[in-house]
């Protein structure tokens, strides 16, 4: 058996393991083993690649792997779960950069036109992914302002950049020996990544990182065409498909189209005033305790405000006390409750909440009428009934968790300020809503003291 054949068979085995690993990610019970299977697939692929007889010097390969591996290992251990969106954004960017470099290095004087086109694609997608992800990282970590950055003439500048990329790419494919066209495409691709993400506000970053996740896969895919390697094509397209699906889910959860998210920074936002009737009814911790003490079915609706207040551990403690009191407790999780797809689930799992208590929006909504108390912690827009009732509301049509259908609603809130989107919330004025003002962690701590 030739080594070439062994390498190719290694890639086939690796692709099979990636696919099987993703299949096992279909259930929380098998997911961890699935990740292992996928990692073994990667190991097989790397060993297969190292069998390549063109490799004469392993020094730099080993150095790169040791340095990169060490950085990755340290980052993976150190990162806080609240910072996962930043980490994923950064990793998307690194993946894009790696594909850009591979595409660039694959350039040889005897490349065919097809290869040249795929080299341009891997440089283009890789470059946009790199700088776009860095901007997304900056917005998520608030090292740069998280607001949408717009200036007059932005669309004209962007159109010129796109034209420049297209022109440069065509010229490069016709004159592959002149490196200036290549440098022009690289430079403009990097610029375009920045220009594409700066007009998008911080609240839309879950969509952006999902989309960039997809791009990092597509860049690997393009690099696979450039160097004629089907392991890259299979793995890259799996990642590409995953990112696209998550992007769609996020857009649907916000009731917006992808073009609307990507380009709405250019449009002026209309601020409709919602007229709300009714009055705010505050409740004390003691009274809230009496209601909870008598409840047999409680739903907790967390938002990112719960994670900001670092309240997930006390929430878990309250859950246990309620259960010991003979009450059923579930969590209702909106797809955009955290700052990236599935983020809230990870934060609650970290606080030891079992995953079978984490219900998706479509699971909890039909049961809402049977729930005695719905406790809203640090969430606002995702429970806003205006999305169902007020046609003039900017979030009208967005799927929300229908907490108002529960017998009683407790809203834990610091003050009466509007939510992230700055929209008035009629939930606070409903007949069955009680406001528990104060820091969420302290309010829940007070409830726990009442129970014990």
């Amino acid at each position, binding site marked *: 058996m030739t080594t070439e054949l062994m390498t190719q068979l290694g890639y086939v085995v690796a*692709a099979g393991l990636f*696919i099987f*690993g*993703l*299949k096992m*990610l*279909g259930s929380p*019970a098998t997911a*961890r083993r699935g*990740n*292992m299977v996928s*990692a073994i697939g*990667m190991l097989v*692929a790397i060993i*297969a690649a190292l069998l*390549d007889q*063109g*490799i*004469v*010097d392993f020094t*730099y390969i080993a150095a*790169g792997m040791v*340095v*990169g591996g060490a*950085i*990755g*290992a340290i*980052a*993976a*251990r150190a990162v806080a779960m609240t910072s996962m969106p930043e*980490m994923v954004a950064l*990793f998307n960017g*690194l*993946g894009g*950069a*790696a594909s850009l470099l*591979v595409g*660039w*290095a*694959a350039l040889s004087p005897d490349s065919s036109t*097809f290869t040249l086109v795929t080299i341009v694609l891997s440089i283009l997608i890789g470059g946009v992914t790199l700088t776009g992800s860095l901007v997304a990282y900056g917005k998520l970590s608030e090292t740069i302002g998280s607001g949408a950055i717009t200036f007059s003439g932005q669309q004209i500048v962007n159109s010129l950049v796109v034209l420049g990329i297209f022109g440069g790419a065509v010229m490069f494919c016709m004159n592959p020996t002149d490196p200036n066209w290549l440098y022009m495409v690289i430079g403009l691709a990097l610029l375009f990544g920045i220009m594409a993400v700066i007009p998008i506000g911080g609240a839309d970053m879950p969509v952006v*990182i999902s989309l960039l*996740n997809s791009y*990092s896969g597509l*860049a*690997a895919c393009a*690099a696979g*065409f450039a160097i*004629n*390697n*089907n392991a*890259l*094509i299979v793995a890259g397209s799996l990642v*590409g*498909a995953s990112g696209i699906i*998550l992007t769609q889910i996020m857009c649907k959860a916000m009731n917006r189209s992808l073009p609307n998210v990507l380009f709405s920074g250019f449009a002026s936002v209309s601020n409709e005033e919602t007229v709300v009737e009714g009055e705010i009814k505050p409740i004390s911790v003691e009274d809230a305790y009496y209601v909870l003490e008598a409840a047999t079915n409680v739903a907790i609706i967390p938002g990112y405000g719960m994670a900001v207040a670092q309240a997930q551990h006390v929430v878990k403690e309250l859950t246990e006390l309620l259960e010991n009191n003979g009450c059923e407790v579930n969590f209702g999780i909106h797809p955009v409750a955290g700052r990236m797809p599935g983020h809230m689930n990870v934060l609650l*799992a*970290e606080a030891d909440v*079992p*995953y079978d208590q984490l219900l998706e929006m479509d699971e909890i909504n039909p049961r809402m009428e049977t729930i005695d108390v719905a406790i809203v912690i640090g969430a606002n827009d995702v429970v806003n009934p205006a999305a169902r009732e007020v046609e003039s509301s900017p979030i009208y049509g967005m799927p929300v968790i229908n907490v108002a259908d529960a017998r009683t609603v407790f809203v834990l809130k610091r003050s009466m300020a509007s939510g992230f989107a700055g929209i008035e919330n009629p939930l606070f004025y409903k007949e069955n809503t009680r406001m528990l003002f104060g820091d969420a962690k302290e309010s829940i701590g007070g409830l726990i003291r009442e129970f014990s």
Partner: protein
Amino acid sequence: MSGAEYLLFILMLSIFLGFELINKVPATLHTPLMSGANAISGITVVGAVALAGTGSETMAMWLGVGAVTLASINVVGGYMVTDRMLGFFKKKED
């Protein structure tokens, strides 16, 4: 048989397969799915090692070394952080 049309054929099949597989991942696992996808996109390391090991100190080799380093961060960091996260997910014990 490694012509362009053969590679495109592979591409088409794996995109369809990807959609089928990922659609079955529950929302609760979407963050580990994304970080796991980060790790898989580190597959670029496989292409980069051949470029980094030519032994000739040309620009292409240095680009390959850079790609090996960046992709290794993705592979090791991505799989480790995904494993760490999935370790949190526990079933309710009665």
